[in-house]
């Protein structure tokens, strides 16, 4: 561990640290992780092959990483927050020039063991960066234009880089994560109202610059039957799968929609659909409840923390996590347009898993070092 703890006034014994760990949170993550492994196993019709193996290994590696990184001092995260952000921007720029493309978008860096998607890391970097940014600012200063403009620029840079990949879904989630912290920091409500109005007014202009496939996704969202075999196919099939699952579901490995390959992207964005088809209403509610518990634990840690950084980070991360989950589930339920947003922990995908686990380790670090006042 490069980030040493020597600069801090408060010292912790190892036993104290172990005592401070939120084991309940770890258990919830482990349960959701196991459910995700079973779900990926089901997407492969009950064969323990490529996706299941990869997912299991990634989950175990990143889960361990989460546990280990939890012991990094939260003050270290605070100090490196801007570095983290700049690193994220650099990676995004790297992607822009040297990234690898798949199905029309350039999002990944080839790391040989896995393809890293820096935009996923950026989701966390923005939260850390903003938590630090607002940590020092007096609530009376927040409304000033200087402190209003700076974070907006900090937010626009990564969003622009991600949109040009193009990856509208992740860009929205990054923007959402940043806005959540700005909101928590206490920016006047009127700014949110104004910007909301401006967004509404500029909507026709925004739509005109959208890529044709993005437009078609939005139009399809309002009327999936517009193109049942093309853009509307995914959402129609997803609704059929979830609806036919019924109260108790079709049973583990019995989901015909996914088994017979009617479901597209079933191991990534549509993993909830598969889960819901096989475990029904009951299973879905349990999964949502587990996520709610996870979010509750994170918020609780925020309350227990003394520093603004930790509070802002935990509340911000919890809200961002909720946003990811909500966008994904609402999307597969046909409540939101298909924008390409994975379901945290459940979806197959290394970068998403990495960023969530990283985010959680910072949360845990807030818990372990909760008495740290951080900075001055």
């Amino acid at each position, binding site marked *: 561990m490069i980030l040493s703890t020597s600069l801090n006034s408060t010292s912790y014994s190892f036993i104290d640290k172990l005592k401070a760990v939120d084991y309940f949170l770890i258990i919830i993550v482990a349960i959701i992780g196991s459910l995700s492994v079973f779900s990926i196993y089901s997407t492969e019709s009950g064969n323990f092959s490529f996706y299941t193996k990869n997912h299991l290994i990634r989950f175990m590696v990143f889960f361990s990483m989460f546990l280990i990184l939890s012991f990094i001092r939260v003050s270290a995260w605070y100090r490196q927050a801007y570095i983290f952000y700049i690193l994220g921007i650099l990676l995004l720029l790297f992607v822009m020039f040297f990234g690898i493309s798949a199905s029309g978008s350039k999002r990944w860096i080839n790391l040989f063991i896995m393809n890293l998607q820096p935009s996923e890391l950026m989701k966390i970097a923005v939260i850390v960066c903003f938590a630090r940014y607002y940590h020092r600012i007096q609530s009376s200063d927040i409304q000033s234009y200087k402190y209003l403009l700076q974070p907006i620029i900090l937010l626009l840079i990564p969003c622009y880089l991600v949109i040009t990949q193009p990856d509208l879904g992740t860009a929205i989630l990054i923007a959402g994560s940043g806005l959540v912290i700005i909101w928590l920091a206490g920016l006047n409500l009127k700014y949110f109202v104004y910007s909301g109005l401006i967004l509404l007014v500029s909507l026709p202009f925004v739509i005109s610059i959208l890529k044709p496939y993005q437009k078609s996704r939005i139009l399809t969202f309002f009327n999936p039957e517009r193109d049942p075999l093309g853009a509307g196919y995914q959402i129609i099939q997803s609704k059929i799968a979830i609806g036919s699952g019924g109260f108790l579901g079709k049973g583990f490995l019995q989901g015909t*929609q996914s088994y*017979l390959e009617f479901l597209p992207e079933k191991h990534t964005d549509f993993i909830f659909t598969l889960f819901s088809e096989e475990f029904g209403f009951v299973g879905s509610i349990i999964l949502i409840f587990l996520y709610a518990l996870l979010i509750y634990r994170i918020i609780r840690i925020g309350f227990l923390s003394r520093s603004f950084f930790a509070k802002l980070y935990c*509340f911000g991360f919890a*809200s961002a996590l909720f946003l990811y989950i909500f966008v994904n589930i609402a999307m597969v339920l046909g409540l939101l347009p298909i924008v390409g947003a994975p379901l945290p922990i459940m979806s197959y995908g290394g970068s998403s898993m990495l960023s969530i686990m990283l985010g959680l380790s910072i949360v845990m670090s807030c818990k372990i070092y909760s008495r740290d006042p951080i900075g001055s």
Partner: protein
Amino acid sequence: MIKKIGSLNKNKIISRRLFVLVAAKIGLLGIVTSRLYNLQISEKQKYEVLSDKNRIREWKTPPQRGIITDYFNNVIADNQRVYQVHLSLEEVSNFNNSIFKLKNIISLKEDEIKKIYEKREKSKPWDTLIISENLSWKEFSKLNLYLHELEGAKPVLSTSRHYPYSNDLVHVVGYVGDATTKDIQNKKKIEENFVPGLKVGKIGIENSKDSDLIGNHGTKRYEVNASGKKISEISYNKETQGENLRTTIDLEIQQLAQELLKNQAGSICVMDIYTGEVIAMASSPTYDPNKFTHGISTKDWNEIKNNKLRPLINKSLAGLYSPGSTIKPLVALAALEYGIIDTKFKVNCKGHDHPYELYGERYHCWKKNGHGLMSMRNAIKQSCDIYFYEVARLLGVDKLSLIAKRYGLGSKVLEDFFLEEKKGIVPSTKWKKQVLEQSWYLGETVITGIGQGYIQTTPLQLCLMTAQLANGGYKIKPNLIYDKEIDLEMIKSKIESEKNKSVSQNILKDHQFKHYERLYRNPNNLKLVLDAMYGSTNEQFGTSFRSRHKEDKYKFAGKTGTSQVKRITDQDRELDLDLEEIEYKSRDHALYIAFAPFDKPRYSLSVLIEHGGSGSKAAAPLANKLIKKIIDRHELREKIRKDLKNIA
């Protein structure tokens, strides 16, 4: 201190703002949950149906056609094993390539390949195309040898319609072919059971009894994946074979009839005079129905189409001919029934020098030197034209028309069973006014008396007429398919009770008759006519005397007929050419009607030879051979009849 207050304040703000966020989250969770409830509980059924629709696909399996047999259970239409090659489109990556490879293994002609491409246009990506319906064993084994190179190709053992007695029964049984859009629209049974490649009846029994013969298609339900690939069979509702049909035809008599008509154009019909069972219905020339099953080749089709003797016409029921002298027994009967003449009535036939004259028109007898003084019996026996000119004039065409219709002329014998059956024409004054919008001339009555002029009949109508004369004058129900409701004993007892029914003069008025009802006023009139027909065949100077059977068992009675194709001019009469000297198209049609055995009549027949010359020379001799066969097979037929009755 300020800082402390500031951070307290900040803490408060954060908590308050978080509270708003949490409230929003709970709200959004509520939306997600209610959406889940809506999809998975409220609308579960709708999505379950959609999910099944997604994953289950049905394939129809073709039904087997019912077997057709003759009266003696000889199979005359069955299903034969054929070797086929099908192409499963979903397994083919390059269609052109597959066809090219197949072309090198089995012989596919250019027009066949064109048809395959047309079929492919119409089919769905998961359909199976029939590439060849009827492969030879050699091709089939070759195909199996190269199968590994042919993706999607499947060698299939299937069945197809086969007619073991090919040409002999085509005019009765008909043939099958691919169902056209019209066939599917017209017949509900075809629509319901349609499967690509389904064969349906085109003409004959195959067509008219299609709904019984087709059977019901099977249904195989498969679970399929998103790209339509079969994953597993869920259920198989087996197809059922169509009904088997027993016809009233006697294969041996039918074959003999066809043999007798060989190389000529003509027809032979044989009927049971009580049950109305059609025992033979031959028409010549014929063609091979097996050629139509897999689509006939252009060469074969042209050969059939261009044959001058018109094989495609079923002459027994779609050929219209003037009945000629075969109408004479009916003319005599009509005159007797209406009391126009009696047995003593005589007319003098004085030969070509003294023809019959009416309003300046002259009408000749066929016999140059004349018959002399003719009574009714002799006039029928020797077929004197002069006598019938006079009787027809006295009778009038309307009364003749009424009796002719009563005995079966002018309407379809088998009702709507055959699409191609024709009604013929039985003229009357009213008919001429309605159809031709002209008045009737007496001269036309005179020639109608010898079966010329407007009158047009089919050979099957003449056979029915003969049957209804020979059975003593009762209306029968002709049929081609064995029907257990038609029972000989029942018919005979009905006839017996009709015999004793008292009738008034009204019976000679125009009215509808039910089956097995008596058609005559006085039974003696019929006896006189039948006896005259006996004379015609079995006494010297009778027109068919040379064709008689001497043995009592085979004795039959008949009437010859020679139907003019064109008007005989005085010049023709002068020349008096032999048959061979006249151009084929101008030769007379030869006709003969008969019933047998004379003492206890049971069967009637009609023979027609197109452009065969005189009835006595060309048609009557065939009846001689036929009747022997019919009588010889009578016992056997009766045995079958009893057996069938016992089963029923």
